[in-house]
């Protein structure tokens, strides 16, 4: 009956209920949207690592960030390929270039050179063309989201990157990199564009056989290549992301705006719930006179805040899903990891309960004697 009373009062005081709901929705949506942009940016930085399909990455010694790593001898590929645990090993080349647009200006791009015929980590989403288009000499991809920056790009036409001719053989869809979008090409073409020292590559990707013991294999490769950094793919991804969180102030800046979102939400909830209790002071006094204990009044207000939280969280997540869907194929970086959802929900629930504390205090301070005056 207490919960029912709580619910009925909420339904009766529609204006304040909707106000509190808006507070909850604001928290979920603002915080969720901020976090998704933050995680989106982070995912850009480790985009190649995350989509490599490899188990292990070999980079230059002391690499903490895939985007700033030195050059390795390509000969390492053959040395690790010879190990019985290794399924395949592929060299990778990447670096920045400038793409000459059809409007005669230049746009920054990230060149990614993949060894034929395996082409890992090849583009994973195509708008036009396919992985096989990259087998041909001079073939390269551009990103569909860059079309408005690059001008009038046509498939199978020739363009220039770092004064080197490439033929656009395929168009990727929504593959977003950090400093400029990704242009995939084969290793030979990438060497030409980036003018890389012969016999060198940026990283070596390595896939283990399913029968191999990952930990043991990792240790063995580390021993085999003491001058290189040998990292599990997930470890390299994590290191790269935390490098940017720590070194760019992005974490702090987004953390701040996330807090502001949460703060606005909690203020709205606190004020509206407090207003609702002020309006209902007399009802609480009557209930107290009729036999409600202070704890019963606390339960009513608490249940109200939980009802508002749950409904608000549902609506907030619905709007967030719409936002994420709508930005999936846009230039806006958005990515919301699955594990974030329960955290955000619990966080919002906790804020709601905090927001109801002032209202609760007011509600239990109402004297039953006040109805007689």
């Amino acid at each position, binding site marked *: *009956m207490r919960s029912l009373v709580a619910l009925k009062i909420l339904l009766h005081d529609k204006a304040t209920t909707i106000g509190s709901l808006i507070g909850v929705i604001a928290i979920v949506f603002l915080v969720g949207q901020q976090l998704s942009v933050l995680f989106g940016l982070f995912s850009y930085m480790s985009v190649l690592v995350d989509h490599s399909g490899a188990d292990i990455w070999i980079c230059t010694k002391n690499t903490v960030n895939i985007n700033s790593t030195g050059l390795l001898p390509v000969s390492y590929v053959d040395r690790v390929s010879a190990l019985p645990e290794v399924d395949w090993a592929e060299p990778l080349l990447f670096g920045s270039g400038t793409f000459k647009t059809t409007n005669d200006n230049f746009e920054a791009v990230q060149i990614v050179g993949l060894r034929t015929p395996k082409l890992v980590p090849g583009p994973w989403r195509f708008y036009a063309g396919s992985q096989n288009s990259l087998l041909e000499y001079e073939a390269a991809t551009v990103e569909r989201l860059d079309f408005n920056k690059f001008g009038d790009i046509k498939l199978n036409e020739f363009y220039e990157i770092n004064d080197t001719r490439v033929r656009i053989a395929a168009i990727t869809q929504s593959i977003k990199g950090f400093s400029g979008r990704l242009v995939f090409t084969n290793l030979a073409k990438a060497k030409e564009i980036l003018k890389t020292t012969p016999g060198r590559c940026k990283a070596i990707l390595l896939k283990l056989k399913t029968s191999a013991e990952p930990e043991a294999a990792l240790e063995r490769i580390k021993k085999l290549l003491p001058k290189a950094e040998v990292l599990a793919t997930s470890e390299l991804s994590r290191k790269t992301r935390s490098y940017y969180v720590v070194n760019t102030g992005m974490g702090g800046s987004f953390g701040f705006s996330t807090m502001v979102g949460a703060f606005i939400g909690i203020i709205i909830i606190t004020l509206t719930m407090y207003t609702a209790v002020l309006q209902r002071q007399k009802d609480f006094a009557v209930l107290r006179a009729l036999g409600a204990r202070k704890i019963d009044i606390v339960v009513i207000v608490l249940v109200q805040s939980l009802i508002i939280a749950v409904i608000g969280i549902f609506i907030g997540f619905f709007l967030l899903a719409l936002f994420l869907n709508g930005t999936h194929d846009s230039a806006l970086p958005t990515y919301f990891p699955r594990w974030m959802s329960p955290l955000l929900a619990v966080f919002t629930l906790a804020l709601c309960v905090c927001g109801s504390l002032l209202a609760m205090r007011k509600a239990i301070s109402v004297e039953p004697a006040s109805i007689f005056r």
Partner: protein
Amino acid sequence: MITEPILQLSGVARDFFDGKTQRRVLQKIDLAISPGEFTIVAGPSGSGKTTLLTIMGLILKPSEGDVFIRSEKVTGYPESKMASIRLQHYGFVFQLAELLPALSVFDNVVVANGIQGKSISSALKKKAKDLLESFGLQNMFHAKPLQLSGGEKQRVAIARALINDPTVLLCDEPTSALDAESSTIVMDSLKRLSQDNTRGIIMVTHDPRVFPYADRLIKLENGAIASDSKSSS
């Protein structure tokens, strides 16, 4: 036959602070209420009627003296225990009905029984229906208080006060906001209820027109009992 009083005040006094000075609003009062009695407490405005009523109702703490319910001393009980006693032993009717606008008429009658977290039994629901019917409110179960007239609201409030068969029914000027006709209906209902020998009704009023309903008339003046008379009927 001498029956045990259902409610007893012993040396009860009450002080209020208004600003800096302490003022004694209720002088030391000794009073015993017997079952089956319809007691009216009358007196001019400010004479301390409501203060006395709220002390009897365990809503206000006396500054001095003790309150007994059926010879159980309840003064000094913790707040939550007082609330439970109010729930079990008391019925309240206020000057304005004070129904919860968010609840239906029916829910208003049963709400107190569920307020400590219990669910409402079907026996209680039946009783609420019977009570509302006995007050001529059978078509109003699902109405919201806003849709009711003043007299109807006050009858719902009386039904709410009676739902637990209270030992003591306390009414603070229940007719002062009503027209003559509604006032008569309410007074007749209270009179009928007072004939039950297990219950005492105490009603506070400053309206002399309702004095004839009383079995016992207590007059308060300046916080003290000026006269206490039982009608000879």
